[in-house]
């Protein structure tokens, strides 16, 4: 065997650290060179030991696993980070990937996956808990769906009133507020809105707002006036 993979284990729970040490020591190509109990010490130990891979818990008392990951990746480009967490929410995954982690393992699968993940990231590849792949794929498909590239220029077909109603709906006004502002009845506003959505082929308020943003009908950010 060539050189062993040098590991730093960061987790605030002694039982988990002990378990990991035991688990990873059983792997012939791995060596746990250090432990850390929180994000801050993880960064310090990493800078000191320059490990190949850091196994990082995300929620260490104070949620500094992400910050620590960021810091380590910034300072030690050769060191990889595998996140080991209980959080199956893809939001955490998103954040972890943004911070620079290349591996993401759920604690429920720790025994079977952690060693694999460490080897994969060590090779410079990405390891994600399998169910996440589907999540990411779903995002991608959805993004394509909502990208209304086939948008026709229906805006010119709108009457002035419809344009005004479109703008106000996009701004988040209630039908009643729009009615009061334009001196119309609520029912009339509803009719205008239904008609303009049909002309622009919009199915929901969300689509309407995005349409308005793309067309510059309403600004991206609103300060309260």
């Amino acid at each position: 065997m060539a050189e062993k993979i040098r590991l730093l284990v960061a987790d605030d729970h002694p039982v988990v650290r002990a378990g990991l040490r035991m688990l990873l020591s059983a792997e012939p190509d791995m060596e746990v060179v250090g432990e850390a109990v929180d994000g801050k010490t993880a960064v310090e130990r990493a800078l000191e030991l320059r490990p190949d891979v850091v196994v990082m818990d995300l929620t260490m008392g104070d949620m500094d696993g992400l910050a620590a990951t960021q810091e380590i990746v910034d300072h030690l480009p050769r060191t990889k980070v595998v996140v080991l967490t209980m959080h199956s929410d893809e939001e955490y995954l998103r954040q972890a990937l943004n911070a620079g982690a290349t591996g993401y393992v759920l604690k429920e699968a720790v025994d079977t996956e952690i060693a694999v993940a460490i080897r994969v990231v060590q090779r410079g590849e990405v390891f994600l808990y399998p169910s996440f792949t589907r999540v990411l794929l779903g995002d991608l498909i959805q993004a394509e769906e909502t990208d209304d590239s086939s948008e026709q220029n229906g805006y010119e077909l709108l009457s002035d009133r419809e344009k005004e109603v479109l703008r106000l709906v996009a701004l988040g006004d209630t039908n009643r507020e729009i009615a009061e502002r334009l001196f119309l009845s609520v029912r009339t506003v509803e009719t205008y809105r239904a008609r303009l959505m049909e002309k622009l082929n919009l199915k929901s308020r969300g689509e309407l707002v995005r349409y308005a943003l793309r067309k510059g009908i309403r600004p991206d950010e609103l300060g309260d006036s």
Partner: protein
Amino acid sequence: MRTKKYYHSLRFKITVGLLLAVIAVLAISSYLRYVSFRELLVESLKLSAVNTEEIVDAQMAAYVRSRLILSVISVVVIVLISQLMLGEMVVGRLEKFLKAVNQVGRGNLDTRVTIGGDDEIAELAEAFNRMTEELRRQAEKLSTLNTLAVTAGQSLNLEQVLCTALDEVMELMGVEAGWINLQDEQEENSRIVASRSLPEQAALAHAHCVWNRGVCAEVLKSGQAQVFHDERRHFCPASEYLEEEGIVFHACVPLKSKDQILGVMSLAGVATSNLWMFAEDSLDTLTAIGRQIGMAIENASLYEELRQKEVLRRQLLEREITLREKERKRIARELHDQTGQRLTSIIMTLGILEEVVSTPEAKTHVQDLRDTAAQVLKEIRDVALHLRPSVLDDLGLLAALRHYLKGYQNRYRLFVDFQALGLDGRRLPSEVETALFRITQQALTNVARHSQARHVSVLLENRGASVMLIVEDDGRGFDVDHLMNTHPHEGNLGLYCMRERASLLDGTLTIESTPESGTAVFVRIPLEGREGDGGEDSTPGS
């Protein structure tokens, strides 16, 4: 106008009647004179000629005719002249009177008639003036009572009600000083709540007024307003000091609501200045006024009670919500951090054990154990998530909503369109994040359960000074007014909770629903005056 017509016909009838009477008198007197003159002539000429009688007759007839015509003419002239004078004397005055009556009829109670002479018309005018004066006073009383009722209805601030009432009554009664004592919680004592021109020492003396002694006690016993003329004979703790001010009479008015006497209003003045106060009906008026004020006191205190209860309710609700969220968060964290980590370590140990054990049977057992532990860990994570998603605290509302919506979409097979603006990398105060998350959860649960919608839009926009959330579906809609105006019950409790959540943060929640085309929930929560990037436990409401 009818009166006028009638009046004119009366005038005409009187005129004709008088005319006929005068003509008749003249005619009769002419005839009598004619008869006696004729007889005289006949007597004197009886001897001279045979035909004399006829001649005289003819002569006389001619004379009488001319006399008669002359008389009639003069009578007509006289009557016309007298009629004119009579018109001036009777009808003119009556006309003046009528004008005054009409004025009063129109509500001008300051009208008075001045008619000279000492006949019946003059007397009538005087009586009329007295009546108008009385009417004016009654009207004034009524208007005071009305003003009091209005004042009492307008304000629900007890002190303000009483001060205004006291001013009104003092002006009506024309008294120099006045004060209102209200019964204290501790039965025996009273305190002065409102006073005008009450000497300081008198007020001090009155501060310890005891209900069961002196004038107050008498009024309390009778329940009727009373006037006390001689201060010395009627004990009032303030009388000594009042006398120094030249005040010699003192009226006490019980302030009653239903059958309970809540206090006493005292009016004091210099006796001679206002005598009518002593009249019987004045006391009745005062008693009525006392009842009005009593009702106002009751209203004000009921309102105050209600207000305090509302404040308390809000505080309790806020506390309840805060505590619940805190508790959920604590349990979720504990499950995560303690139970979760221990299970993790068990899984790892079992993983090692699996490699170590030699018999296939033992291996299978260890594997089963390991799988069970992993399953328990998963379940615990779900329970924690359900209690309070840690992502909300760790990563914020945006991440929490994205995560929640994904799960929701899969669970209910509804297409969710989520759009957030002005929130990238920005955290809202934690109590706002919690409230918006819970409101969204509730709104979406309603959509899934009741709307039969296919699309839902969730819009979240941070506008700096406020944050806006809109949840809109394309379902079948419902009657908002009907559901929100009925008492909280199983069917609308969720809506009430959402509204309460928003209102506790001084925000608003509006629901608009159109049958067969969908429902939109609009939430706006002000951010001004709140701590900036929140997200930590210490913030209230988390």
